[in-house]
């Protein structure tokens, strides 16, 4: 990472820690939503951005994670046990969902995962004995961590931020390891990767399972954040929104999901001053953004940085050095 990049990360981290002290409860709720959905977007970025496997199922995994916690905690299961159970369950389901990816790719795979999201939605809506159907589940308790009660909006935000920090570090570690290189190879040239000894089948399943697991962990925080979950929250719209976060931020860029989630969560709220036009303006802004920076906002920033470096280099070489010349 460049020096500018490190400074940007430090500034962003400080801003994320300081923000709730300057915001009203709704503002804290919004940045908590950003933190929670960033975790799901990091998972999708791993599956799609790094390993190149399109998935429209991430919203469904957020739903599975949310319902796991919402159903287990009233039974007396400690929050963090339910939290890890949500991650493990989504890992297992994600692993199974990865099998179609061994046979089909691109838009065919998109349709397989889209069908899975629809299936999960129908189960959540129709299996009332388990999920309470369209009436949803209310009152998922926020956890107590070593005596620290996270009932307050600010406390729960910091809990979510801590989880995001830990999961980001774990993901960063994985992506810098040979696994990260293998995921990129899977995206760029699976046939060559296979000929170099990479078990592409195993890495494809891993990419799906780990990405889905992060979706489940995000959902496990989402339920106590909103304290009311119902099937519509996890329908196809959320999967598309998470896809948007990854693409807008910069697919395959580690920090892309952070930026993309920020845009997808905060931009519609900032545009509310335009009243009923806000969604139209939001949609138009996304279309313009995608037309001019298909590699996402961080891709645009990288391009700008490279252009600036190039200009500096040209300026440097064109300035005559002292004592040069006849």
């Amino acid at each position, binding site marked *: 990472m460049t020096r500018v990049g490190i400074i940007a990360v430090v500034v962003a981290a400080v801003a994320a820690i300081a923000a709730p002290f300057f915001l009203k409860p709704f503002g804290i709720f919004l940045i908590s939503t950003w933190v929670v959905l960033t975790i799901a977007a990091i998972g999708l970025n791993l599956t799609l951005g790094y390993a190149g496997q399109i998935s429209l199922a991430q919203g469904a995994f957020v739903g599975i994670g949310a319902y796991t916690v919402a159903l287990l905690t009233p039974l007396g299961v400690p929050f963090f046990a339910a939290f890890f159970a949500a991650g493990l369950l989504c890992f297992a389901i994600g692993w199974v969902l990865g099998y179609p990816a061994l046979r089909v790719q691109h838009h065919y795979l998109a349709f397989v995962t889209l069908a899975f999201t629809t299936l999960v939605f129908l189960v959540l809506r129709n299996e009332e004995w388990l999920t309470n159907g369209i009436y949803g589940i209310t009152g998922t308790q926020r956890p107590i961590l070593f005596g620290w009660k996270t009932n307050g909006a600010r406390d729960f935000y910091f809990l979510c931020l801590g989880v995001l920090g830990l999961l980001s570090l774990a993901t960063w570690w994985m992506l810098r390891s*040979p696994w990260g290189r293998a995921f990129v190879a899977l995206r760029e040239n699976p046939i060559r990767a296979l000929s170099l000894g990479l078990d592409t089948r195993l890495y494809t399943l891993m990419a799906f399972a780990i990405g889905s697991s992060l979706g489940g962990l995000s959902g496990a925080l989402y339920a106590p954040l909103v304290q009311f979950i119902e099937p519509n929250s996890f329908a196809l719209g959320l999967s598309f929104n998470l896809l948007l976060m990854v693409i807008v931020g910069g697919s395959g860029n580690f920090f892309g999901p952070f930026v993309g989630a920020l845009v997808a969560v905060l931009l519609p709220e900032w545009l509310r001053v335009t009243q009923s036009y806000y969604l139209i303006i939001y949609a138009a802004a996304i279309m313009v953004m995608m037309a001019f920076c298909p590699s996402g906002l961080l891709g645009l920033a990288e391009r700008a940085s490279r252009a600036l470096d190039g200009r500096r280099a040209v300026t440097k070489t064109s300035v005559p050095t002292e004592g040069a010349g006849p």
Partner: protein
Amino acid sequence: MTAVLEVSNLRKTFGGITAVDGVSFDVRAGEILGIIGPNGSGKSTLFNCVLGQLQPSAGDVRIDGKLTTGVRPCDLNRLGVSRTFQLLQVFPQLSVRDNLILAGQEHQGSMASRLFGRADAGLGDTATQMIEFFRLSHLAGEQAGSLSYGQQKLLDAAMAFMAGPRLVLLDEPAGGVNLTMLGHLRERLQAYHAERKATFVVIEHQMEFVMALCTRVLVLAEGRIIAEGAPQDIRRNPVVIKAYLGH
């Protein structure tokens, strides 16, 4: 001398078309075998059947005496068999150095140790040596996609050698490479062969390249072997001339 690769009565059909028709040959340890033939003669299909990319319709492939017909390419690679492809197959978004580390990393430890171990899988020094060997040091940090075609061909070959294979199958390594780079590539392949005593099988159209590199040549036409022998004999063989020139 023992046979590293034995191919017996290999046959591959696609619907009504027979691409490889009962081909048998073996490759001895330390040999550089060239396989030539006109376009559509079945050379690449033969490679793909030997290397598990395609399932043969009939016949056997043995590596070091062990039956490997239908074994997956990744498992064959771990047995010490490596390859290049007819078309360039580097990973354009990765650096030259990362391309090389990737080419060897699956031979290092288990999945778990690769996750928790060093980012370079302990291959940093080997990658540096390979970069120096193929004279790509000035490009080590560059993205592979930004290299010239000839440089990418060199990298492609270097990746095939990264895990120290016993048997390397090179599919048209000289294709599309300019004369200067071609000489450099041939010289590096010869140096690697002399240094490591590896066994090569090379598919190539560039006759000068084949004649200078290979110790024995097989000629394929319409999926069958029509000639076999020393490079200088093959060059004068009337059957081969007829297959290439059609008269």
